């Protein structure tokens, strides 16, 4: 018995050393290149820009359907509402364009950022709320589709064509990134899946009739409109997947989800933003 324990300890120490060595030289860019190259080998026919299409990239029929829906999306009314909200002055008389960097255009790909002063991840939705509060308004609820969701659905279109450009610099940023990475790769729940089980290991594979999308490209096209005009934000999608796979889910806007979005968005660095799209 003692012998076994000792053996196990030695084995565990060996593993620890190994893992220490791996994490010592692994940074966000190494992490990203590792999955990008993994997919490159697995799907030699996919072009980098195809990843923006997620699961549609593997299914010509679904892609055809997508293209025809995108010609005249059923959710244009929501975008129009969002545009009105975007242009309506806040209590101070200023508009969102006045208080966001670059007039709010071509900035979505920079978010989430890590705010050193606040010591936490700030999503684009948080930045919009900061703008509201700074100009005399109440913050919107992060998970409320009729306010924040609708506004962001329009606002994010102002960044179409920008490349995702997440930066992880400094100790706090690195910690938040690592936390998000852990949420993504740790197995959890009754079914013992991690996000990576489906969106890395089994990307391009069907479970039942559903094709699994690769993590690369997943973060660039939100909110998505599902089944017509049902608005779904990226973090609502996290909630949905966690519920589906029997994880303990958070609510949109939680620190865990913000950190997850930070890591998750980094994995799409270099890909073009495209808001707002149809998804099944």
């Amino acid at each position: 018995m003692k012998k076994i324990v000792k053996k196990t300890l030695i084995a565990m120490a060996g593993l620890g050393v190994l893992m220490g060595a791996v994490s010592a030289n692994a940074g966000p860019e190494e992490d990203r290149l590792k999955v990008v190259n993994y997919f490159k080998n697995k799907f030699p026919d996919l072009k980098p820009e195809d990843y923006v299409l997620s699961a549609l990239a593997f299914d010509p029929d679904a892609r055809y359907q997508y293209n025809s829906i995108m010609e005249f999306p059923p959710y244009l009314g929501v975008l129009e509402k969002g545009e009105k909200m975007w242009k309506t002055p806040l209590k101070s008389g200023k508009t969102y364009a006045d208080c966001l960097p670059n007039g709010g255009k071509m900035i979505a790909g920079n978010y989430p950022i890590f705010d050193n002063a606040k010591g936490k991840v700030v999503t684009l939705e948080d930045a919009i709320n900061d703008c509201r509060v700074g100009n005399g308004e109440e913050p919107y609820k992060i998970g409320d589709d009729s306010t924040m969701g609708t506004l962001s659905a329009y606002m994010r279109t102002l960044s179409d064509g920008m490349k995702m450009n997440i930066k992880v610099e400094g100790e706090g940023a690195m910690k938040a990134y690592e936390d998000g990475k852990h949420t993504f790769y740790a197995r959890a729940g009754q079914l013992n899946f991690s996000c990576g089980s489906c969106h890395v290991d089994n990307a391009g594979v069907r479970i039942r009739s559903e094709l699994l999308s690769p993590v690369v490209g997943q973060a660039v096209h939100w909110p998505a409109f599902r089944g017509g005009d049902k608005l779904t934000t990226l973090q609502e999608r996290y909630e949905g997947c966690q519920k589906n796979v029997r994880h303990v889910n958070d609510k949109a806007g939680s620190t865990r989800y913000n950190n997850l979005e930070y890591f998750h968005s980094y994995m799409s660095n270099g890909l073009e933003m495209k808001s707002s799209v149809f998804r099944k």
Partner: protein
Amino acid sequence: MRKRASIITGVLATLLASSAYAAETGKDIAFNRSKGNCLACHAMPTLPDAEQPGESGPPLIAMQARFPDKKVLRAKIWDATVSNPATFMPPMGKHQVMTEEEIDKVVEFLYGL
């Protein structure tokens, strides 16, 4: 009167519960999305009604020939991570996705494939 009604309801409930239980064959359990949900990942090529299977696991076919020892098959379903730590397959018994009886029934069902 009341007492009798409640006894009858009780008897009925027991009957219903046990008949529902009896009706749950290994196949039902394997197909049920909230239990085995095996079709999410495995084809069953010998069953015409095993429609739209997923493709991440190997097809479940010729099980008796491939798993002459039933215990090995049962162990795979109970906790697939033992033989393959990186597996995608949920540990059905260990994480109580299915009960022990349900697993036994599914093993019998698989032996017919």
